[in-house]
C-alpha cells in the first residue's frame, strides 16, 4: 500500500524509520512518531468501525483524547486489549488492530440493519422494548445486544504484564504541557518549587505544536522545546509524557496513569507496562486546554467529517492530509487556520462560514491566499455512506432559521469548528462549582474548592498572550507561597493573529422534508431526535436526560457532545444553558486499565502471607495448608493416600490416645505491663482478675459494649505487673485496638502498656494423655508433675539451652501444654518435640483435627463467637462476675438478652449416627412444615467425633437449655439434605473436664 495521503515533507514524524502494522488483517506501513490513526489516514483508510447502536460506519473525528469513536481492539505481544483509541495509540513495529462493533466485518455489518430500522431505536429504546416480555430478555435480547454492541472484548487470559503504583508528593502538579502548563511550570520551577508536569501525549507543547505563533524570537514549537529541555535539566522538576491525570480526589490527591510501555512492541525487561501515580499536591494548576466543539448537521457522523483542529494536527504533526477536497465548516476563525494549512500544502479548501461578514487578520490572510470563502453558509448534510463524497450546503438566513436552496458540492472531508470547550473535568471533579461564560458559550471553573487553579484555554482564555501572562504569574505566585523565593521570569514578546468574534450558531436546521440524523454524542449514538423524545416524554433534569438517552456517558464523558446537548435542551425548554446546568463529571477523565488500578496486588501479592517459623518443617512433612486469616496453617499432614477426612481423624484420635503437637504460633499475643494491668483485665474481661497469682493462667471472655462476645483466650500472670494475653487468631488486631481505645480515651488514668507480641513467640501445643511424658523429657530440669505444674499453671523452662514459657492450658480438652519460645528458636523447639515425642507416638496435627477436638469438647471458637452471640448463648454465663462492672455488662440486662427461651449452644447427633451434618444447616421441628418453615437454630460447627466414632455438631438453638433430649430435623436446602437428629449436651466428651486436670 502506498501512503497516498502523506505529504512530501513536514510533520514531526521520523520519516527515516518505517513501521509496518496490520489493520483488520491488511498490511500497512507508517513512520515512527505516527499514531495508529495518522498512519491509517496516510494510507487512505477512513472506515475504522461501526457505531454503538445503529452500526453506522465510523471514521476519525479527533486526533487525540477528544476522539469519541475511533476505538479498536489492539493486539500486542500475544495479548489483546479492548477500547483503545486509534488517535492515542502510538504506532509500533508489528502492531495489530481490529475494528470493534462490526459483525461479521467492518464493510458488511449485520447490525447496520439497525440503521435502516432506526425508527425502532430511539431514546430509551433499550428500557422500553427490551423490558417486555420478560422471558425474552435472556434468550433473545441479551445475546443479541451482547454480540452486536460493546467497545471490544476483554481478554480472559491472565495478564502477564506488570503494573506499578507510586506515591508522590509535590508543591505544584501541572496537568498539561501546552502554553499555560509550560509557562506556569517554568516560573514555579525557577522559584525552586517541586513541580510535576504531566502531558498525556507523547510530545510536549500542546497547541504550540500546531499554531502559527511566535514567542520571543522563536516559533511556538521552538519555544516549547527549549522550555521543556530546560525543565528536564532541573532537579526539582519531574516532567512526564504519556501521562494522563485522570482523577481529582479529596484533599488534593490526584491520580495519574503513565503509559510506560504501550508504545513499544514489547515491554522491556524489569519495566512495568503502566504506572499509576497517587500524587498529593500542595497546589494544582489545571492546564488541560480545550476541545473543539462540533457543529451539528445532517449525517455529521459520516467518516470524513472531523474536527478542524484534528485536520490541522494531522497535517502539522504527522504530515498527513485527511482529504484532498476539503470543506471547512466553521463559526469562528479556527477553521481558517486549518484552511490556510491546507492551502500551504497545495490543497484548495472551501470555507463555509456561518458568519455574515467577519473581519480579522486570519480571515484577511485566507483571502490573500485566494481561499474560496462562502459567508452565511452551512453544511446541511454530508453525503456518502462509508466516506464523505459530497455535501449539501445552503445559505442561511441572518436569524439562522431558514435555509436557502440546497446546492451539492464535491468534497472528501468536512472539517468542522464550532468554537472551543474548556476542559473543566478535573476542576469539576475537585468540587469546583463551574460557571457559564456567555462570551464562549461554555462552562469555566468558578470558585476553587480545593487548592486548584485553572489556566489558559481550560479557563476560557483563548489568546496566547493573556494565557502566558496569567500562567507565568500564577506559577510564580503559588510557588512563592511555598518556597518564599521570587525569581521573576521576564515576559517574552508574543506574536499571534487576532481573531474575530465567533458566531453562537451550533445546529443546522433540517431542510423541509428531510429527516437526517444529526448526532450530538458520537460515541453513544445520541441524535437531536433522541433528546427531543426524552424531553417530550417528560424528562427534565439533565441528569435524567443523560441516563435515558446515554448522552455524555461511557468513556467519552461528553468531551465533544456535552455543550451541544445542553444547547439543545435549553432551546427546547426555553431556558438559558446555565439554568439547565451540566451533568457531573466523574473520574476517570479517560479510561484507565484495570491492570493499572490493581497494580502489584495480584494473586499471592494481594495480601501478605504469614508463615510460622516452623513452616518449612510442615512443608517437608506433607502438610496441606489452609488460609487462616493472613496466616498459612497446616490443615492436615497427609500420609500415603489419605484424604482430609481420614488424616484429620487419625491425627485427632492420636491426641486422644497418645500425644499430638500443633503449631499455635498464629494465636494473637499481647504483652501487658504496668501497675494497673490487673485492673485493666478486670474491666475488659467478664470474670474476676484482681486475685490471679503470679504463675497462673486464667480463661477470660471479653464483650463489646453491646454485650456481644468479642473474643476469648487465656491470660497469664508472668510477674507482679506483667501479663501475657492470648487472643484468637482472627481477632488479634481488633483486641489490641480495643485495649488501646480504653487505655487512651476512656481510662487514661490506668498506668498500663499494651503491645502485640504475636510474631515474637513461636508456639506449640502438646496435647494428649502422654503429653506430660514428652514434657518431662523436654524439660528435664523442671518440675512438670501435676503438683509442680497444675492445670492453668505457668512456669519458665530451659529447652536444651533455649528459654521457654510453659503454659498448662488446653483447647483439645486433653491433658495439654503450650510451649512458647522466641520465634527464631521455633523450628528448633519443634524438631526437639518431634524427636523426643517419637517414643510416645507423637504426631503433628493440623487445624482440621484441632477443630474436631474442640468441637466434641464443646469449646467455643470463631464460628460460635460470630458477633451475634452473648455469653449465655455459648454457656459462658458462669464467667460473668456479679461483683464488679465490666465492658458490656449493662447491655446484658436488656430484655431480649435475658429472655427465658434465649438461644443456647447444644450438641447435635444424627439419629442414624452416620450422616454428616453440613455446617450452616437449619434446625426445624417439622421437616414437612409449609414454607417458610420456622427456624429454631443453626449448625455452627461439625466434626466426626473420634471419641464416639459418629458425626457430631454444635448448634446455637432457640431455648437450647430445654431442648436436650429432643428430636428435631436438620435441613440444608443447599445440599438438599434432611437429617433427623437428637439434641444433646454440647460437652460430648469428658463433660466433667477431668482430663485437663489429670
Amino acid at each position, binding site marked *: 500500500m502506498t501512503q497516498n495521503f502523506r505529504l512530501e515533507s513536514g510533520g514531526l514524524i521520523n520519516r527515516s524509520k518505517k513501521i509496518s502494522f496490520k489493520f483488520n488483517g491488511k498490511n500497512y506501513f507508517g513512520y515512527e512518531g505516527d499514531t495508529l490513526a495518522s498512519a491509517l489516514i496516510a494510507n487512505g483508510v477512513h472506515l475504522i468501525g461501526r457505531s454503538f447502536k445503529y452500526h453506522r460506519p465510523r471514521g476519525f473525528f479527533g486526533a487525540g483524547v477528544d476522539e469519541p469513536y475511533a476505538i479498536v481492539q489492539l493486539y500486542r505481544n500475544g495479548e489483546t486489549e479492548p477500547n483503545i483509541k486509534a488517535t492515542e495509540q502510538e504506532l509500533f513495529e508489528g502492531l495489530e488492530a481490529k475494528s470493534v462493533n462490526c459483525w461479521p466485518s467492518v464493510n458488511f455489518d449485520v447490525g447496520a440493519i439497525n440503521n435502516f430500522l432506526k425508527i425502532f431505536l430511539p431514546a430509551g429504546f433499550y428500557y422500553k422494548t427490551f423490558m417486555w416480555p420478560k422471558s425474552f430478555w435472556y434468550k433473545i435480547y441479551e445475546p443479541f445486544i451482547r454480540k452486536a454492541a460493546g467497545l471490544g472484548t476483554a481478554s480472559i487470559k491472565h495478564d502477564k504484564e506488570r503494573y506499578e503504583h507510586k*506515591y508522590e508528593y509535590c508543591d505544584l502538579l501541572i496537568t498539561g504541557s501546552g502554553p499555560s502548563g509550560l509557562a506556569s511550570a517554568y516560573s514555579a520551577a525557577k522559584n525552586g518549587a517541586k513541580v510535576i508536569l504531566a502531558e498525556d501525549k507523547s510530545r510536549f507543547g500542546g497547541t504550540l505544536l500546531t499554531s502559527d505563533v511566535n514567542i520571543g524570537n522563536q516559533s511556538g514549537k521552538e519555544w516549547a522545546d527549549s522550555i521543556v529541555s530546560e525543565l528536564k535539566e532541573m532537579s526539582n522538576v519531574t516532567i512526564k509524557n504519556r501521562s494522563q491525570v485522570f482523577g481529582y*480526589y*479529596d*484533599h*488534593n*490527591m490526584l491520580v495519574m496513569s503513565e503509559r510506560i510501555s504501550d508504545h513499544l512492541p514489547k515491554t522491556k525487561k524489569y519495566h512495568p507496562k503502566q504506572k499509576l501515580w*497517587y500524587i*498529593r499536591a500542595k497546589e494544582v494548576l489545571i492546564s488541560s486546554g480545550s476541545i473543539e466543539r462540533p457543529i451539528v448537521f445532517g449525517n455529521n457522523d459520516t467518516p470524513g467529517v472531523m474536527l478542524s483542529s484534528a485536520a490541522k494536527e494531522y497535517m502539522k504533526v504527522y504530515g498527513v492530509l485527511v482529504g484532498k477536497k476539503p470543506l471547512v465548516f466553521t463559526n469562528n476563525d479556527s477553521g481558517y487556520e486549518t484552511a490556510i494549512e491546507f492551502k500551504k500544502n497545495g490543497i484548495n479548501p472551501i470555507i463555509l462560514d456561518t458568519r455574515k461578514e467577519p473581519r480579522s487578520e486570519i480571515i484577511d490572510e485566507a483571502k490573500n491566499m485566494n481561499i474560496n470563502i462562502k459567508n452565511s453558509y452551512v453544511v446541511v448534510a454530508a453525503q456518502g455512506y462509508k466516506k464523505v463524497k459530497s455535501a449539501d450546503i445552503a445559505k442561511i438566513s441572518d436569524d439562522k432559521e431558514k435555509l436557502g436552496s440546497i446546492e451539492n458540492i464535491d468534497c472528501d472531508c468536512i472539517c468542522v469548528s464550532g468554537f472551543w470547550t474548556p476542559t473543566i473535568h478535573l476542576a469539576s471533579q475537585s*468540587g469546583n462549582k463551574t460557571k457559564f461564560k456567555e462570551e464562549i458559550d461554555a462552562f469555566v471553573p468558578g470558585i476553587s*474548592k480545593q487548592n486548584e487553579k485553572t489556566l489558559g484555554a481550560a479557563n476560557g482564555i483563548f489568546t496566547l498572550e493573556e494565557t502566558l501572562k496569567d500562567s507565568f504569574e500564577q506559577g510564580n505566585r503559588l510557588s512563592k507561597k511555598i518556597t518564599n523565593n521570587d525569581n521573576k521570569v521576564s515576559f517574552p514578546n508574543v506574536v499571534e493573529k487576532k481573531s474575530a468574534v465567533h458566531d453562537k450558531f451550533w445546529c443546522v436546521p433540517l431542510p423541509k422534508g428531510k429527516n437526517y440524523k444529526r448526532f450530538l454524542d458520537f460515541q453513544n449514538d445520541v441524535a437531536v431526535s433522541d433528546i427531543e423524545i426524552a424531553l417530550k416524554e417528560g424528562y427534565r433534569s439533565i441528569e435524567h436526560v443523560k441516563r435515558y438517552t446515554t448522552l455524555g456517558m461511557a468513556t467519552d464523558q461528553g468531551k465533544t457532545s456535552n455543550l451541544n446537548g445542553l444547547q439543545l435542551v435549553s432551546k427546547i425548554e426555553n431556558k438559558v444553558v446555565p439554568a439547565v446546568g451540566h451533568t457531573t463529571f466523574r473520574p476517570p477523565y479517560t479510561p484507565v486499565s484495570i491492570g493499572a488500578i490493581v497494580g502489584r496486588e495480584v494473586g499471592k501479592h494481594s495480601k501478605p502471607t504469614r508463615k510460622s517459623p516452623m513452616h518449612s518443617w510442615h512443608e517437608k512433612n506433607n502438610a496441606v495448608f489452609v488460609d487462616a486469616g493472613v496466616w498459612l496453617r497446616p490443615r492436615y499432614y497427609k500420609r500415603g493416600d489419605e484424604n482430609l477426612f481420614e488424616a484429620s481423624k487419625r491425627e485427632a484420635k492420636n491426641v486422644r490416645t497418645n500425644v499430638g503437637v500443633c503449631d499455635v504460633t498464629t494465636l494473637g499475643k499481647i504483652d501487658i505491663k504496668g501497675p494497673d494491668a490487673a485492673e485493666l483485665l478486670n*474491666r475488659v474481661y467478664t470474670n474476676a482478675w484482681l486475685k490471679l497469682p503470679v504463675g497462673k493462667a486464667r480463661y477470660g471472655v471479653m464483650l463489646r*459494649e*453491646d454485650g456481644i462476645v468479642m473474643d476469648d483466650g487465656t491470660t497469664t500472670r508472668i510477674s507482679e505487673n506483667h501479663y501475657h494475653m492470648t487472643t484468637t487468631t482472627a481477632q488479634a488486631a481488633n483486641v489490641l*485496638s480495643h485495649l*488501646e*481505645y480504653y487505655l*487512651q*480515651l*476512656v481510662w*487514661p488514668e490506668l498506668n498500663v502498656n499494651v503491645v502485640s507480641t504475636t510474631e515474637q513467640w513461636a508456639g506449640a501445643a502438646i496435647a494428649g494423655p502422654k503429653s506430660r511424658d514428652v514434657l518431662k523429657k523436654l524439660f528435664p530440669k523442671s518440675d512438670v508433675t501435676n503438683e509442680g505444674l497444675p492445670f492453668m499453671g505457668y512456669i519458665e523452662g530451659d529447652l536444651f539451652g533455649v528459654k521457654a514459657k510453659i503454659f498448662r492450658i488446653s483447647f483439645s480438652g486433653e491433658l495439654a501444654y503450650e510451649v512458647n519460645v522466641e520465634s527464631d528458636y521455633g523450628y528448633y523447639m519443634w524438631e526437639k518435640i518431634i524427636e523426643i515425642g517419637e517414643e510416645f507416638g507423637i504426631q503433628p496435627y493440623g487445624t482440621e483435627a484441632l477443630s474436631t477436638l474442640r468441637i466434641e469438647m464443646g469449646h467455643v471458637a470463631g464460628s460460635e463467637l460470630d458477633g451475634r452471640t452473648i455469653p449465655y448463648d455459648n454457656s459462658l454465663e458462669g464467667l460473668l462476675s456479679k461483683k*464488679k*462492672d*465490666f465492658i458490656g455488662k*449493662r*447491655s446484658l440486662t*436488656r430484655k431480649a438478652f435475658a429472655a427465658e427461651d434465649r438461644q443456647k449452644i447444644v450438641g447435635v447427633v444424627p439419629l442414624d449416627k452416620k450422616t454428616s451434618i453440613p455446617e450452616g444447616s437449619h434446625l426445624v421441628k417439622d421437616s414437612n412444615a409449609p414454607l417458610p418453615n420456622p427456624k429454631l437454630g443453626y449448625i455452627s460447627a461439625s466434626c466426626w467425633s473420634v471419641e464416639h466414632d459418629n458425626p457430631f455438631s454444635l448448634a446455637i438453638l432457640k431455648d437450647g437449655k430445654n431442648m436436650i433430649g429432643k428430636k428435631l430435623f436438620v435441613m440444608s436446602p443447599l445440599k438438599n439434605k434432611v437429617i433427623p437428629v437428637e439434641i444433646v449436651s454440647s460437652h460430648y466428651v469428658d463433660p466433667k473436664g477431668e482430663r485437663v486436670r489429670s
Partner: protein
Amino acid sequence: MLYIKCPHCGMRSQNEFSYGGDATIKRPELGKEISDQDWDNFVYNRKSLRGKHWELWQHISGCRQWIKVERDTATHEIFNTLKANEEISL
C-alpha cells in the same frame, strides 16, 4: 483519599488510619446506675449529621494512637485534629 494530620506523626494518608465513630460520646462511669435510655444512647444512638463532626480515628499503621478529628461529613474538609487527651471545645 483523605489527608489527616496525626498530632503525633504529622500529615498522613487515610489508608494508615481506621475510623472510630463519634468522638463526643462519653462512656458512662463503671459501676454507676444508669437508665436504659441513657445506656442505649451510649451504645447505639448516634447523630448522622451533615457538616462538622468530631470523630475518632486510630493511626493504626503509624503510632497507634487514637486521635480526635473535626471533619465535615459532606465536604471531607478537616478543620482540626487533637490528641486523645485533649478536650474538644464545641
